[in-house]
């Protein structure tokens, strides 16, 4: 586990929720806290070299362009993209997935084609495909989930073989169950069936070493705000050949080469997909987040989460009135523990825990269908990151007992 001194890098973590009640932040799957290095990188941009990028021929604009494009390089290296031309800045995972739906999807799907999503997806990797299926006449099917919260690989193979699957979309790690999918094998199977694969990496890149070339995913989407970075920026990685064949998504400045009243020639990758003034400060912030994570090492990040998750699963297993959904051991899962608390609605769990300074999330976590499928109630979800310490898990367990006591 990381030394608890790492917490000093995160100003929010030393905050009190109310006088005398320090914050215990167990909601990192919703959004992570930010280290000073990230906040400072953005403040420095705004205070010292704030400027629009790309076409400016003056010092500030050159510095801003170097910062913005430098961030892209860092991210390309971080996920081992073959080229920074394949790293497209979007607003978040959600936009990255919608971009693929509106461009690749509209272009390549029609009646008879099958889209394959899964029962455990976040709405971001579900609703765009429902909308796309409705618009194109394609059919949307779902890979089922096993009772312990993994994707049913047998059913997956069967669906790939039986159906005319053109696109497979699934998440690297579920934000409810915590389960981590065997991405590489699933991508290979989809490719063998002739399908293109999009991986929702919103819970992948922040927590696991990700090598997009090793995984061989065609598209891989993630958000900065879940990996120590700012709100307002995310990434779509895509294979060059696919991106080049795709029509652009939004029209505007920076995504064009030449515009006349008669028509337009589009810009090269990655800018073809980046219309308008980019999220410059945010890219610089994300670059600083990548630096910070690389400083720790993603293997170490993953090891820390495995350790803290094991500890949490162990401690929570001792609590008789709490049941955890998803895989039973830490190996197949990330730092997420969605809890059913017997006799207490998660709203009340969350609200009462807040009184003790403990921030968790209550509800269906933007993944309604998996709750119907597993026939479970909304849950109270605790989630962990690099700054989570065992004492916080202890406080959670203690808090849960108090909640239960209160509700009797």
């Amino acid at each position: 586990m990381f030394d608890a001194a790492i917490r000093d890098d995160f100003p929010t973590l030393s905050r009190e929720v109310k006088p005398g009640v320090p914050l215990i932040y167990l909601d990192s799957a919703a959004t992570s806290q930010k280290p000073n290095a990230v906040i400072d990188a953005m403040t420095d941009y705004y205070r010292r070299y704030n400027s629009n990028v790309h076409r400016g021929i003056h010092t500030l604009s050159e510095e801003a362009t170097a910062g913005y494009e430098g961030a892209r390089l860092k991210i390309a290296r971080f996920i081992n993209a073959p080229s920074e031309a394949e790293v497209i800045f979007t607003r978040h995972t959600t936009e990255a997935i919608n971009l693929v739906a509106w461009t690749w999807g509209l272009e390549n799907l029609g009646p008879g084609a099958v889209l394959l999503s899964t029962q455990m997806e976040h709405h971001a990797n579900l609703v765009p495909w429902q909308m796309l299926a409705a618009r194109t006449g394609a059919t949307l099917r779902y890979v089922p989930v096993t009772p312990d919260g993994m994707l049913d690989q047998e059913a997956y193979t069967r669906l790939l073989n039986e159906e005319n699957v053109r696109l497979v979309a699934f998440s690297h790690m579920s934000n409810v169950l915590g389960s981590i999918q065997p991405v590489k094998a699933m991508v290979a199977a989809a490719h063998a069936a002739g399908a293109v694969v999009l991986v929702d990496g919103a819970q992948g890149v922040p927590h696991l070493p990700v090598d997009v070339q090793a995984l061989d995913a065609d598209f891989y989407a993630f958000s900065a705000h879940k990996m120590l970075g700012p709100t307002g920026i995310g990434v779509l990685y895509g294979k060059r050949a696919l991106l080049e064949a795709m029509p652009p998504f939004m029209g505007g400045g920076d995504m064009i080469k030449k515009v006349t009243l008669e028509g337009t020639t589009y810009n090269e990758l990655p800018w073809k997909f980046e219309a308008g003034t980019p999220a410059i400060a945010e890219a610089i912030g994300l670059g600083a987040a990548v630096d910070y994570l690389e400083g720790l090492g993603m293997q170490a990040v993953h090891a820390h989460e495995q350790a803290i998750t094991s500890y949490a699963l162990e401690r929570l297993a001792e609590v008789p009135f709490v049941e955890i959904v998803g895989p039973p051991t830490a190996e197949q899962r990330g730092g997420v523990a969605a809890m059913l608390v017997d006799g207490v609605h998660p709203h009340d769990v969350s609200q009462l825990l807040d009184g003790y300074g403990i921030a968790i999330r209550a509800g269906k976590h933007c993944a309604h269908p998996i709750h119907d499928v597993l026939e479970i109630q909304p849950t109270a979800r605790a989630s962990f990151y690099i700054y989570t310490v065992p004492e916080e898990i202890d406080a959670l367990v203690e808090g849960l007992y108090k909640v239960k006591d209160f509700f009797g």
Partner: protein
Amino acid sequence: MDDLYRELIMDHYRSPRHAGLLAPHDISYEDENPLCGDRIHLTLRVDAEGIITAVGWEGDGCAISQAAASLLYEDLVGRPLDYAKNLTAEEVLERVGVALSPVRVKCALLSLKVLKAGAYGLDQNGT
């Protein structure tokens, strides 16, 4: 202990007034808050003058949603349906009597939503 869960709320949550659906009934309406799963099903009997003569409901969800329903439905008997139609969110929140964040306001107001929909004759199941 959290202010939100003061005695009145917990009392209504633990011992909801008018628990149990009415059969027969004149009005029946059920709705849920899909984000969190709070659910309320309300049945009413109404006489020829439009006066509520009996109330019965059941539901599940968080303490706030269920206690608010119990508090709101507690004194409906003897009142005209128009009373229900004219109730405002502010009145309901006042009755709940604790400061609620926007998320929890939704919990508290589910009972009002169900009552109004019922009063306006959105009878889902008939008698």
